[in-house]
């Protein structure tokens, strides 16, 4: 178990290195003149060159990467070229916003998909068809279209929730809830559609397995068989899909944060990538890759909890 986690962490760190290098190399290729962009059209060429030199841009790409890496391993992600903000503290203030939403969506999705999926698998018939149709609709509509409809109905028409803005939890829990509800709902539609379908499929599969009949023959009540044995056996594929959804949500957060004006990682990505602000982009990439690695690891460990055969040695 420990060796498994350690090995996976080592692989994750290697992945971080490879991706950071690739990103850095790609970003460095067609350099727009950063010094010129910073100082404006009227600045002298000498001043622009000096500015580029102070940012280290006159050096070869490998040297620049080595420089970035040596600071990054010490927890120093540098400063934004354009705003001078410390990248790490900028990330730290925005991360809770994105995490509120992504974790919220994951929880909502897990609970709703479990209920809907089990219900559809056990009941069959009308309920089953309803869940299938819902999941096709949820899957078919682009997420941001769903978001637009939610904003138009619940924020613009009914005025139940604010259309825009974010209130930190520490400032006002109820305010926080009112600002994250719509974004979470918007992202949950598609996620529930995908995961519920998976839960339905794997629960239906497990219900057909022989041991379920044997458990019935021992006189166990159906509810106990369903929730103790069937759901447990069906959980591995569902968890895997949930993990994939989580990774996808990091992307979905970009759209939702832009639409709701939430100051999270997603809206930060839009702002800074368009300007080619390398230190900030590198910080964002690192944070998301770490997120992906951690989530995949957690899913693998969780899958092993109910399943001794898949349990990591």
């Amino acid at each position, binding site marked *: 178990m420990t060796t498994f986690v350690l090995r996976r962490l080592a692989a994750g760190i290697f992945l971080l290195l*490879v*991706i950071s290098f690739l*990103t850095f190399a*790609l*970003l460095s290729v*067609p350099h727009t003149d950063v010094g010129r962009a910073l100082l404006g059209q009227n600045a002298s060429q000498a001043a622009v060159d000096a500015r580029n030199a102070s940012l280290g841009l006159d050096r070869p790409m490998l040297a620049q990467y080595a420089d970035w890496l040596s600071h990054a391993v010490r927890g120093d992600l540098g400063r934004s070229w354009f705003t001078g903000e410390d990248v790490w503290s900028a990330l730290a203030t925005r991360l809770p916003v994105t995490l509120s939403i992504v974790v919220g969506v994951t929880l909502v999705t897990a609970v709703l998909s479990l209920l809907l999926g089990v219900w559809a698998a*056990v*009941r*069959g018939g009308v309920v089953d068809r309803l869940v299938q149709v819902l999941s*096709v609709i949820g*899957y*078919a*509509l*682009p997420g*941001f*279209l769903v978001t*637009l409809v939610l904003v*138009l109905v619940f924020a613009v028409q009914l005025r139940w929730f604010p259309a825009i803005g974010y209130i930190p939890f520490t400032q006002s829990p109820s305010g926080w809830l009112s600002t994250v509800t719509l974004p979470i709902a918007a992202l949950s539609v598609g996620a529930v559609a995908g995961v519920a379908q998976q839960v339905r499929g794997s629960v239906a599969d497990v*219900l*057909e*397995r*022989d*041991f*379920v*009949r*044997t458990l*019935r*023959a*021992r*006189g*166990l*009540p*159906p*509810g*106990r*068989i369903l929730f*103790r*044995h069937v759901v447990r*056996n069906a959980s591995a594929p569902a968890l895997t899909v949930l993990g994939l959804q989580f*990774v996808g949500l*990091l*992307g979905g957060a*970009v*759209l939702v944060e*832009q639409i709701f004006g939430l100051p999270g990682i*997603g809206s930060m*990505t*839009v702002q800074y*990538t*368009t*300007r080619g602000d390398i230190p900030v*982009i590198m910080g*964002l*990439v690192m944070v*998301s*890759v770490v997120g*992906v690695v951690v989530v*995949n690891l957690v899913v693998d460990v969780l899958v092993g909890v109910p399943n*001794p*055969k898949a349990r990591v040695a």
Partner: protein
Amino acid sequence: MSETLQNESLATDPDTNRLERAPRRSTWSAYLHSPLGVAGGAVLVLVVLAALLAPVLAPQDPSTADLALAFHGPTTGHPLGLDSAGRDVLSRLLYGARTTLGGAGLAVAVALVLGVPTGLVAGYRGRRFDGVASWLVNLVMSLPAMIVLLASRAILGPTVWVLMLVMGVLVAPSFYRLTRGVVADVRGELYVDAARVSGLSDARIIGRHVLVVVRAPIIIQAALVGGIAIGLQAGLEFLGIGSGDTPTWGAMLNEAFQNIQRSPGLIVWPGLALGLTSASLVLVASALRDALEGAGGARRARRRPAPRTSTTPVPVPAPVPSSAGSDVPRGGLLSVRGLAVAYGTDDDAREVVHDVDLDVGPGEIVGLVGESGSGKSQTAFSVLGILPRGGHVVRGSVTVEGQEVLELDERARRTLRGRVVAYVPQEPMSNLDPTFTIGSQLAEPLRCTLGLSRRAAHARVVELLRQVEIKDPERVARLYPHEISGGMAQRVLIAGAMSGDPRLLVADEPTTALDVTVQAEVLALLRRLRDERGLGVLLVTHNLGVVADLCDRVAVMQDGRIVENGTTAQVLRRPEHPYTRRLVGAVLDDAPCREPWEPPSSAPDRTEATA
């Protein structure tokens, strides 16, 4: 040369027929029977036509602006009205379809070109290429897609084509994985082996056998990825991250959203176009998948009458007392009279067991023999009340210790299971829940239905395991099912059946899945339990050797009916029914009936656990 050709036709003929021709027709007709699939397909065709014919259909150039007409409603020249800059909405919608479809097409094409050939090679050849490719795929899949897209736009320029190209690269792994998985499955198939043995080149095998199989899943995946690409593209354009001035649906939505207060109607058309197009893609994909699965499902269903078991009972029509009961006095422990079991609902119900009579007395072992599909297991399941979903007793009577059980409700019936009537299944491994230890799954009914404490339940489990002659029961209780052998698993299942101290054991081919020496041990165990506890056993089997060994009486079943019923000696020595004679003849002609098995006086010390 001619030999190769001949071999090739031998190797390929039946399979190409099976895979290529037959299912294609049925898949298409199944697809055409899905209204949603047809509607989705029609919408897609319309959108493609609209995009192609945009220059002809559009009232004016999509960029022509007349600020004086901004927000003007529909007029004859502008059937859908004008937007905030006085541009014609219909023209922008039509030209927008070009960008949207073209972009999605590009993304899908890039993903196909990158993902499918690599997947084919990795799945077919495996080994080192597979290792490298899979590592790359994992790398790409861990990339934060949105950030890569935005960054690549900053690097490569703000056009929709760059975005879609990059997206194609990012989703290529999904095609790689799909192709690789399907191909790896197919590679193990016998007809591919046959083709390889007959000397076909790999390229030919891939072209003629493998591509045929991956084609359909790839089309489905392409439709789904196309839908995602359209949604993503529109989403980015909606955020203003797209192709500047090109008319696109996403940009139109953005513009409409900004002016939502002034002209709420503007959002309808691009929203509708986008929603319908991407929904159609998903509908087409899911109809296609259903059509494919439907064709396969029908084949499966023919092989297996009972598709699913369920923990919730289907509403069952009350059994009608049968007049076909025999005159034989009813057995003391179990008595079945005129039992009929059917699958399906009223209109197309199919009866699989007809008017079966059976009796088992205390301390008696009764064999129920017959070939596969003769209704033996269905009869056994009805006694326990655990028929698979869709199956129900249509008439007859089943009494256990004189009590009519078919009239009991599910809850009352449940209290009988395990405590009065217990079940020993056929396949030992698949009948243990792989996620629980042996000890905990044996203890569960003890704690749950008998209300024992944790400690008492554990002690009882160890005692039960010892009774079924498992050495070191403490250790075995801590093992998981995959850590023990098949023979030990069957002992565990017998222990599970005995845990409620039942009076009747229904054993459904308890030895079929075991090898011969273990079979003999399990039979000896059943005999011992009968001798020690006066247990009645209904032994379902197709093995007359087992019957001769163990059974006091035997009933022979054919096509859902009992055709002969009597003492073992009588039925085996002087069979009356022609079917029984054939069954017995098949055994006795070739081999003498074997000696009853005696347990070895000093059992050799064997450890069965593979842990």
